[in-house]
């Protein structure tokens, strides 16, 4: 008996299909935040009252809200604030957490002991609650919500960074570099940091998505910028009072979910390929 094996010809993709789709989603999101005017002709702040609460249609893909504003335009114009605040949060978490982890892992001793207690404290307060008390202390605004979200994620970065630094520092090649006369600074910048950053990068992408969710949660509770800002969390929060017109909740929610899903997918891919 002859068995013929035919292989379907395949175009080699540079990355899995899901990752490519996720990158496309991100490209659209970046486009929306940089040049919202290119993607919608409607004004996000001024609506046509006669057109209020229309369902999704060819003219208004996401429908219109209670003031007759095009919801897609509101989502697109809210992107910059929703996304850049998450970037701020991740940068704060990355820099502060990375520094704490680096210092405690590299220096060890009493520095490590003190910083470890600080991280314990940050971990002992429920994440969202920590963000809430910090934003209460700073005052309600989207930027402050971003700072609070960043601080609430410091502990995770500190932990990962610390364990990576310790792992790298005890590696044979680092020892070799030290024995052949490399200074501590040289070892830190040339060996420890590049190696540690490999596992911190996927974490940063993952946290980027989670920060979008946390900031949306803070905006939902009213701790971000007040209307007419149109952050995604705020749009959902306004939409919840009009559940008879569910697209007011589901459209911005869908955009949020697709964005976060894409970021998670990219983070998983980065983790696998490094």
């Amino acid at each position, binding site marked *: 008996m002859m068995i013929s094996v035919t292989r379907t010809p395949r175009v080699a993709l540079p990355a899995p299909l899901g990752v490519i789709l996720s990158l496309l989603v991100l490209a659209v999101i970046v486009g929306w935040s940089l040049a919202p005017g290119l993607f919608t002709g409607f004004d996000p702040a001024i609506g046509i009252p006669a057109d209020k609460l229309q369902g999704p249609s060819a003219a208004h893909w996401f429908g219109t809200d209670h003031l007759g504003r095009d919801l897609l335009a509101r989502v697109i114009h809210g992107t910059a604030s929703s996304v850049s605040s998450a970037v701020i949060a991740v940068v704060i978490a990355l820099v502060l957490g990375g520094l704490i982890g680096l210092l405690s892992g590299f220096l060890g001793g009493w520095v490590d002991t003190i910083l470890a207690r600080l991280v314990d404290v940050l971990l*002992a*307060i429920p994440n969202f609650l920590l963000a*809430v*008390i910090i934003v*209460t202390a700073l005052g309600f605004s989207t930027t402050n919500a971003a700072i609070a979200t960043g601080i609430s994620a410091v502990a995770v970065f500190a932990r990962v960074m610390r364990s990576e630094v310790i792992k790298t520092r005890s590696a044979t090649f680092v020892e070799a570099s030290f024995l052949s006369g490399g200074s501590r600074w040289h070892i830190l910048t040339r060996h420890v940091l590049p190696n540690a950053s490999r596992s911190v990068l996927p974490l940063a992408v993952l946290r980027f998505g989670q920060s979008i969710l946390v900031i949306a949660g803070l905006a939902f509770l009213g701790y971000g910028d007040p209307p007419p800002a149109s952050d995604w969390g705020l749009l*959902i929060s306004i939409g919840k009072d009009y559940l008879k017109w569910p697209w007011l909740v589901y459209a911005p929610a869908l955009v949020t*979910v697709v964005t976060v899903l894409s970021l998670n997918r990219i983070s998983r891919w980065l983790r696998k390929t490094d």
Partner: protein
Amino acid sequence: MQGAYMNYAAKRLLQAVVVVLLTYVFTFIVVSILPGDPVTNVLRDPQNGFTEAEIAQIVAAQGLDKPIPVQLWHSLSGFVTGDLGVSLRSSRPVSDLIAEVLPSTLRLAGGALAVALVLAMGIAYGARFLPHRFGGAALRALPSLFLSVPSFVIGLLLIHIFGFQLGLFMVIDPNSFWATFFAAVALGIPISAQIAEVLMANLDHEASQDYAAVARARGLRQSKLFFRHLLKPSSLPVVTVIALMVGEVLGNTLITETVFGRTGVGSLIQRSVVTQDLPVLQAIVSLAAVVFAVINLIADLIYPLLDPRVKLVGTAPRRVTTADELPRANA
């Protein structure tokens, strides 16, 4: 062994106490660097209608005229002896305010943890044993989806479908059975995702062990293999995950209770944030840290007893407990 365990237990206990005290100090510092001096904002709010004499009295009673370190010492020693202070808004003891709303939140959180456990077991079992075309692969992706949906959206979705469309419950009656049930589901879904991820990773590991291969070769049915052999070693790390999740549940009640219109600790936090009632916030955050510390202490103390493989070397046993720490091949 006995001596080593007692040594470990004593160390862990001391560490927990230190963390709780430091958390109290940390919260106090965060709350007292508030730029807008909320204390006088609250007291001078015309709605409250305090006279100058009354304000002076309250300030003196709360010790607000003293320097910050003195206030901290006063407040901390109160906390250690179980005195949580007095609300700025209502002038009632904070412990009374919390005690009033606690039962409702405990019901919600308990329900959420139960929902999360059942869901996570179902997802992990299905992802392990269902053939791909019957959804095994889709189930594996489910936790990632759950973690990408804002928890308030899950709540609104449930209210829309089961409250509005199917009429199972009314939002104006948040304490009815179905309203509580769906609030618990909304709170439990993100938690279930994190438990499921750890459970799936550990199940994969256990299923690749020799003993599992032997059991399969003996012709053991899948369900028996799962419940008799794989589940126990795989769920040990879950003990720690659940302990970590308790804090998360407490924080997230803030959103769930707001969405479902329930009264509870979460809505008390929301009210205190909006009115800047700092003693209440300070107390709730510190109590959350106490709950977190106690539960993690218990989890760490029973862990070596549950798993004889864990060797104590003076530090906490090492396990995979969060998605961030998963081995890369599984992630």
